[in-house]
C-alpha cells in the first residue's frame, strides 16, 4: 500500500479538513452497515477507507452493449463514454471534446444516436447500446462501413466511428433524402481531416442501395 500514499504539499501533513476519511470514521450510515466497526476503523488507518466508501458511492447499471448484457457498478458522474472506454475497453467510441460539440462519441441508445459524452451511465440503465464494435455481423461489415471504406470517408479514422453511427441513424431517421439534407444532419460530427464530401457520397450510396441499416 505504500505506493498509494498520497504525495501532498509539505505543509499539509496531519491536517484534517473534512474529507471522506473523516466521514468514514464518523459515519453512522457506515456504522449501521458494517458489522465489525473495529475492522473499518483499522481499514481507515490503512487507507482502505476510500475503497470501502467507493463501493457505497457507486450505483448499479445494467445495460446491453452490442448484444451482451453488462451488470456494472458505476459512479453517478461517470459518462457512458468513459464507461465504454475505460471500464469495458470498448475504445472504438472516441472522445474528441467531452462536451457534445464534435460527435466523435456517437453511439446508438435503443437505436437512436446520442452523444455518449453527454450521457451519464446511470441514464441508460436497462437500455440497449450499440457501438461501432457492434455494427458488423462478425466478419461481414455493415453496409455503411463498406461504403465508408469504398468512398474513403475518413483519413486519420478518429471521428469515423462517430460518423458511421451517425450516418446509420441519419438514414434510419429519414434524413438522407438529398445531398443537402445529409450534410445538414451530419453536421454534428466534425471531421478535421476533411472527409465530408466522401462521407456524403458513402451515405448516398447506402441510401440508394436500399439495404436495411
Amino acid at each position: 500500500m505504500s505506493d498509494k500514499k498520497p504525495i501532498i504539499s509539505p505543509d499539509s501533513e496531519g491536517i484534517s479538513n473534512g474529507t471522506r476519511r473523516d466521514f468514514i470514521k464518523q459515519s453512522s450510515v457506515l456504522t449501521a452497515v458494517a458489522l465489525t466497526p473495529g475492522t473499518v476503523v483499522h481499514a481507515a488507518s490503512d487507507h482502505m477507507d476510500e475503497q470501502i466508501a467507493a463501493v457505497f458511492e457507486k450505483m448499479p447499471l445494467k445495460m446491453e452493449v452490442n448484444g451482451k448484457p453488462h451488470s456494472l457498478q458505476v459512479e453517478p458522474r461517470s459518462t457512458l463514454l468513459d464507461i465504454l472506454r475505460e471500464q469495458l475497453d470498448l475504445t472504438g467510441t472516441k472522445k474528441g471534446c467531452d462536451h457534445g460539440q464534435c460527435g466523435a462519441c456517437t453511439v446508438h441508445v435503443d437505436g437512436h444516436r446520442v452523444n455518449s459524452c453527454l450521457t451519464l451511465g446511470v441514464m441508460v440503465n436497462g437500455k440497449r447500446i450499440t457501438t461501432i464494435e457492434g455494427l458488423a455481423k462478425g466478419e461481414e461489415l455493415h453496409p455503411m462501413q463498406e461504403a465508408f471504406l469504398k468512398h474513403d470517408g475518413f483519413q486519420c479514422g478518429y471521428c469515423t466511428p462517430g460518423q458511421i453511427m451517425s450516418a446509420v441513424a441519419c438514414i434510419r431517421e429519414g434524413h438522407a433524402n438529398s445531398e443537402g439534407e445529409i450534410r445538414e444532419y451530419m453536421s454534428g460530427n466534425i471531421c478535421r481531416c476533411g472527409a465530408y464530401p466522401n462521407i456524403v457520397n458513402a451515405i448516398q450510396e447506402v441510401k440508394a442501395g436500399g439495404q436495411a441499416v
Partner: protein
Amino acid sequence: MNKPIPTSADGLSRVDGRAKVTGAAKYSAEYNQPNMAYAVLVGSTITKGTIATIDTKLAAKAPGVLAVLTYLNSPKVPGHIPTKAQKPGAKSGPLKVFYDNKILYNGHPIAMVVADTFERAQYAASLVKATYNKQAHDTKPPKDLSRGVGAWGGKDFTRGTVDAWKTAPIKLEQEYIHPSEIHNPMELHAIIARWDAPDKLTVWDKTQGTQATRDDIAKAFKLKKEDVQVNSQFVGGAFGSALQVWPHEVAAILGAKVVKRPVKLVLSRPDMFTSVGYRPYTWQKIGIGATADGKLVGITHEAVGQTSTFEDFAEGPINTSKGLYAVPNVTTRYKLLSLDVNTPTWMRGPGEATGAFALESALDELSYALKMDPIDLRLKNYAKVDPDNNKQYSSKYLDEAYAMGAERIGWENRKAEAGTTIQNGWLVGYGMGGGMFGAYRDVAVARAIMKADGTLTIQTAVSDIGPGTGTAMVLIAANKMGIDPGKIKFEMGDSALPLAPMQGGSATTSAVGSAVHDACTVLKEKFQQLMGNGGTDNPDYVKILKEKNLPSLEVLTKSQPGPDNEKYSMQSWSVHFVKVLVHPTTGVIKVDKVVCVADSGKIISPKTARSQVVGGAIGGIGMALMEEAIIDHRYGRFVNNNFADYHVPVNADIPQIEALFVNKPDPYINPIGAKGMGEIALIGMAAAVANAVYNATGKRVRDLPITPDKLI
C-alpha cells in the same frame, strides 16, 4: 483535356481502413494497462507572474488520489527536451513542467493530479487552488514591424534592388492579418507512460515521429535510446501538433515514476489550445509593383509572427514571395514578437500558408489594378527556373495545373468586374490562389520480409497521421514485387522498427516510399539471384523459398537523397479554384464549388491522395472563413477554447470538391517520382476563397477569417 474526374471510390481502399471503420484501430489513449492510473493537469489562471501559494491538501485527500505534483514536490527532469525551432541559448527553450514557480502564459501547467480513475482525477484537479504574484502581461499581437525582433539572426533579405516595387508604374501596398489557428485534430493529445524498470520506459503517445519522440524523451530523462519504446500505431490527426514532445508528455512520465503505476494523460479540448502549439498570429504587409502589361517589378514582403517569451518559433511566411514568381527584385523582412503566450509550432503548410494568403491576395488585387485576368498575370510571371537560386526545377507543371483547374471550375464564367453577378439573390464570385512548398527527401530505412506463404511484410518506424502512408507504401511494394496488395502487411508506428523521419514537411512518401521501393528492389534481386540465370521479372517467391528450403528472405535497405537533390530546385505546386455565393444582405458566404489541382509528381495512391487534397482544401476554407483563436487581452486567456466557439468547417459548410493531379513523375527527387502533397493541399486555398469573395462582392477582406460581419 477531358480527363476523367476521379471520384471518391477510385483506387485501392486504405489498407488500415477496416480497422478504422470497425473501431479496432487503437489510438494512444486506448492501450489500457493493468493497474493504470489517470492524470489530469491543472493550468494557471493568470498569464504572467509567480505562484505565491499552492494548496494541494484537499486534492491530495480526495478519493482515489495517488499523487499531486507541483513544482514543490515533483521529481526534476534530469535533462531537457531539446529545442527545435531556435538557436540554442537564445531563450530558455521548451517549457520545463513543474520546474519553478514562474507562470509564462495562461494555462501554464501548475499541478497534475494522479488518481485511480479519470473521474476522481478530474474532480481532485478542481480542488487545487493557487494564489499568485501577478505581473502585467502582454498578449497583444503584432500590428506592424516596430515591436518585432529579427528571426534567424535578424537579417532582411534582398534580391535585386531594395523595395523596387515602389518604382513600378502600377503598384499597391496592403496589410494582411492571419489570426492564431489551432490544429485541433479530432484525437485529443494523449499518452500512456509505463516505467518497466527505473531506467526503462514504454509510452503509447500521439506523435508524428516515434523515433524523434524516443530521442527527445531519452535526452530529457537521460535514458539510453534503446531503453525508451515509443508506440504510435494510429494517430488521430495532428497537422503539425505532434511534431515535438510537449510538457504534458513529460508530466505523465513523471507521474508514472511517482506513483509507480502506468499513467494515462488525455488533454481536454480546452487544453489543446494551450498545450500543443498553434499557427501563430502573423501580421504581414506586401508592396507589389508591375509594369502596365503585368510584368512584376518587385515585391516587398514584411511579416511579424508572434512567439512566446521562452522559445522562438520561426517559420517562412515570406518564402512564397521569394519563389512563386519570376520577379527580379524581392525584399523580405521577418520578425518575431515575444508575447506572454504559449509557443506556436508548425501547422499544415507552416509559414507558406500564411504567406500565400497575403501574396496571392496581393496578386489578385494587382490583377484588378492592371485589368488583367489573374491567371494571365501569373503566367506572365511564370518562373521557369527557381528565381531564388537560378537552379532548374526538377519538375514543374503549374501552368498545366492552371489550365486544368480553370476548365473544371468554369473560369470563363468569372466576370472581370467585381460585385456584378447576382444569381437567385446571391452574389457570385470566382477566385484562385496558388501554392508551393519544398519537395524534400530524407534518409529512411525499410525492412522487407518475404515469407514462405507468399506474404510480404514491410517495416518502418513511420507514423501515419491520416494521409494514407500505409496504403501508399503497400502500393509501392506491390508494384515493385508484382504481388497483390492484399498479401502485403505494413508494420509501422513503433520506434524499434527501421529508421524513418517524422511525418512532416510533406516528405513521408518521398523518404519512406523510396526506402520501401529500394528494399523491395533489393529483395526481388535476391530472389532473382537465387533462381540463377539472371532470374525473371516476376519471380515465384513461394516456389523459390520452398526449393531453397528457406522459411523467409529479408532485406534491410537504407535509402537517401543523392546529388540531384542538391542540383535541382525541388518544389510541389498547387492551384485552388473557388466559386462562392455571398448573400448581399446577411453577408453569409457559401462555398459553392472547389477545384484543386496539384503538381506533386507521380500519384502513388489515387484514392488517398484525392482525399488528402480535398482535406487540405477544407482546412483552407476553415482558415479563410472561420478559424480564429481569440484571447481576451485583459486576462490573456482564450475565450473560444472549444468546438462550439472555435469554428471549424462542418459537413454543411462543404460542397463536393474536385481534386485533380497533373500526375507526372519527378525524374530527379527519388526513385518513385513522387513529390509532397500534404502542405500544398492547403497553401493558397485561403487566398482563393478571399479572392472569390472579392469577385462576388467588391469587398476585399485582408484580416482572416472572412466572417459575414466584415461584408455587411
